[in-house]
């Protein structure tokens, strides 16, 4: 319970509205600060989720030399140990949150949506779910 509270509080701290305001130069390729923040959050989350997904996929296949994950062949770590079946749902929850936020971010960047509230909420939920995933898988 204590761990879950810490995860939630930390995740709430990543909300764009709660961030400490600093003056920064625009990031090349972004249309504004929220766009850059969304991209950075999603890129971070994608890397963390993909790392855990690689572990799960290697474990599910009994650790062959390589597995194909999302179209890319990747090397398995034979020393990784089994991915706990009970944690699979946490992985899928994080993936689903990522996909929701990614879709919202792409739409915002392309100008197809101006719903900053929904995008911010999706990014916050993604932070909660990625933190929960890593707390679960790493805190044995």
């Amino acid at each position, binding site marked *: 319970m204590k761990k879950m509270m810490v995860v939630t509080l930390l995740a709430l701290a990543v909300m764009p509205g709660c961030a400490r305001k600093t003056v920064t130069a625009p990031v090349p390729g972004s249309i504004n600060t929220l766009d850059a923040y969304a991209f950075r959050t999603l890129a971070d989350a994608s890397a963390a989720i993909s790392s855990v*997904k690689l572990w799960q996929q290697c474990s599910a296949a009994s650790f062959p030399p390589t597995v194909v994950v999302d179209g890319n062949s990747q090397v398995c770590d034979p020393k*990784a140990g089994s991915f706990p079946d009970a944690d699979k749902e946490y992985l899928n929850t994080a993936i*689903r949150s990522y*996909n929701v936020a990614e879709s919202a971010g792409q739409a915002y960047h392309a100008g197809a949506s101006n719903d900053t509230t929904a995008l911010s909420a999706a990014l916050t939920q993604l932070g909660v779910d*990625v933190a929960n995933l890593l707390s679960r898988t790493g805190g044995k």
Partner: protein
Amino acid sequence: MPIAILLANLLPTILSNIPGLPATLLKIIQDVGASVAAILASGVTSAPSVNTVLAAWLGVITSLRNDPSLPAGTLAAIAQLEKAVQAALTEDAVAAKQVDWTLLKPIQTV
């Protein structure tokens, strides 16, 4: 605060909850956690400070790996946690400098 820094800040909670940790390692985890909290409170979350945080945690994790009293399964899980956080921090350094939405794709559930 990017997710990578959130995860780095989450590490002390995760690590200190590992059953059977020696008191000396728990103290180190608490001390590093306090340092990370100070960095985050300062609002300085640029690449160098993030790398400093990561280096500190990698040192703690290396100490954990060298502790023969911890079960192999625990060490394996810690190693995977380290990989995930390191992947996020590495990606964060790149994403902070250049936005390219074509790089992001949906991820399939398992």
